[in-house]
């Protein structure tokens, strides 16, 4: 019970693991702090000026002792580093791919001073996030203006939300409830008001919420999935003129997601969300070898959430046909030898 007051609620798979490490470090800190302070007080009492004490043969150095208190703490730090590293990697680049595959992907746009969140099925929320319990959640996040940081203490997760670049984080909520959502990176006047709540729900409640949210927000676009919205934008922004199926001299986007692309400057880049985003905004910087540099930069012409919708659509073009790995690799191979 005492402990509970010093720890926030544990509502994700990470929480108990991080708390274990935290408490281990607390124990270590307490041991050294109290131990050394006890020794200091003991010395002060024993060797205080005027007190009778054995002060013969005072030593000034002792190499073995020095080595002991150098090497022992070093050794102690090795397992601590190890446990931490494992957790850290799992949080940002999960080694367990199966979990990552089956995750629910939520898109986060941070702006002064609110969080804008979108579910793949199209539902949008501001400063509130509804998620089902027990399912891995992947957040793909970007900021529209300055740095922000998406922080949910009960999940023990935090990652900066950076303008110009996607950052991701991943967690599995384990406990139904309502938890604080904070912005942890200073972002200006209303930094402390940039937050809200995360609601972890039973899966069936979540399904019900999705249904309500779809029709209940009074926003017809909520009825659209992200993919559909992306497809609509694809036409509205004239992407179809060159990338659409009917385009003359078509540059197809089918199947490119996740493949390696050879750029005109000789670099190889995996076509991930980040790559697609940059290709839309600043095509010159991401020019693929063998293509004419005719695509106009879209920087300043699309909103961050629209880019996310476009990316979802482009991804869907890759999800349909055959197993992704093989032909894609061959395709990039072919481009490489061009």
């Amino acid at each position, binding site marked *: 019970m005492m402990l509970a007051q010093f720890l926030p609620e544990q509502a994700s798979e990470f929480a108990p693991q991080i708390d274990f490490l935290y408490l281990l470090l607390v124990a270590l800190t307490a041991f050294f702090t109290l131990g050394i302070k006890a020794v200091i007080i003991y010395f002060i009492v024993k060797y205080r000026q005027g007190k009778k004490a054995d002060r013969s043969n005072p030593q000034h150095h002792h190499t073995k002792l020095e080595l002991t208190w150098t090497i022992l703490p070093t050794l102690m730090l090795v397992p601590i580093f190890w446990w931490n590293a494992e957790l850290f990697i799992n949080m940002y680049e999960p080694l367990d791919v199966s979990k990552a595959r089956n995750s629910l992907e939520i898109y986060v746009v941070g702006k002064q001073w609110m969080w804008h969140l979108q579910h793949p099925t199209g539902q949008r929320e501001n400063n509130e996030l509804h998620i089902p319990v027990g399912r891995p959640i992947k957040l793909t996040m970007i900021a529209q203006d300055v740095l922000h940081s998406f922080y949910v203490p009960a999940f023990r997760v935090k990652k900066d939300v950076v303008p110009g670049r996607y950052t991701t984080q991943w967690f599995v909520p384990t406990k139904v409830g309502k938890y604080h959502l904070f912005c942890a990176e200073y972002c200006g006047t209303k930094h402390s008001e940039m937050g809200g709540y995360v609601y972890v729900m039973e899966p069936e409640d979540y399904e019900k919420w999705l249904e309500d949210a779809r029709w209940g927000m009074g926003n017809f676009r909520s009825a659209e999935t992200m993919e559909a919205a992306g497809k609509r934008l694809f036409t509205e922004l004239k992407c179809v003129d060159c990338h659409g199926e009917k385009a003359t001299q078509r540059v197809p986007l089918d199947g490119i997601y996740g493949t390696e692309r050879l750029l*005109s*400057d000789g*670099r190889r880049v995996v076509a991930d969300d980040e790559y697609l985003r940059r290709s839309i905004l*600043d*095509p*010159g*910087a991401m*020019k693929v070898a063998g293509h004419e*540099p005719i*695509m*106009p*930069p879209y*920087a300043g012409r699309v909103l961050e959430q629209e880019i996310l919708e476009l990316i979802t659509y482009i991804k869907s073009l890759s999800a349909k046909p055959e197993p992704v790995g093989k032909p894609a690799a061959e395709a990039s191979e072919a481009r490489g030898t061009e």
Partner: protein
Amino acid sequence: MSTETQEHDPLLAHQFEDVEQQTDSYVLGMWVFLVTEVLFFGGMILAFILYRNMYFPAFAEAHQKLDWRLGGVNTIVLLTSSFTMAMAVWASQKRDYGKQLMFLTITVLCALAFLVIKYFEYSAKFEHHLVPGTNFHFDGQNQNGVQLFFGLYFALTGLHGFHVLVGVLVIGVLMFRVWKLRKQEQDYVPTELVGLYWHFVDIVWIFLYPMLYLLGGVHI
């Protein structure tokens, strides 16, 4: 006080015991100062390396907007000034103040020539709207990268140019001093220190020239 019991050398400042200690201190101080300068430029060079990698096509395109011939002339000018500066230090050590003044004059003239050429380069960039900011204009796909290149170009060459300007002033003061004291025996250390600084300014340009003018390839 112990200093007064020693014979008082007019070239020796009160805090030092002897001229050797004084000379060593000044030279070491200058080297340590130059280390800070290395890191001062180093921060920007790091930014240049990273952005060049991120926006390689844009940087290659932007390189072409610079005139490698003007940059080359400036390199030769600065190398020459570095050489005459080294000679000035030599003359100073030989206590040949006439030669020293001559070499310093050439050095200053080279420095001024460098600044004049730089001025022409800058004004061409202003004319072509290649100065980052609201007036920046560049046709083509790579606006962001090109603007970054010119941002770094102006920051790097601007700071370097500032160092050249400071060099001109310092050498000017040194020349005045040497001329004023030409009848007396002088300490060569001030000249050596100015020389170290000036060679450092030259080294910065030795890196800036290929980085900014050449790495996109040049066409004769």
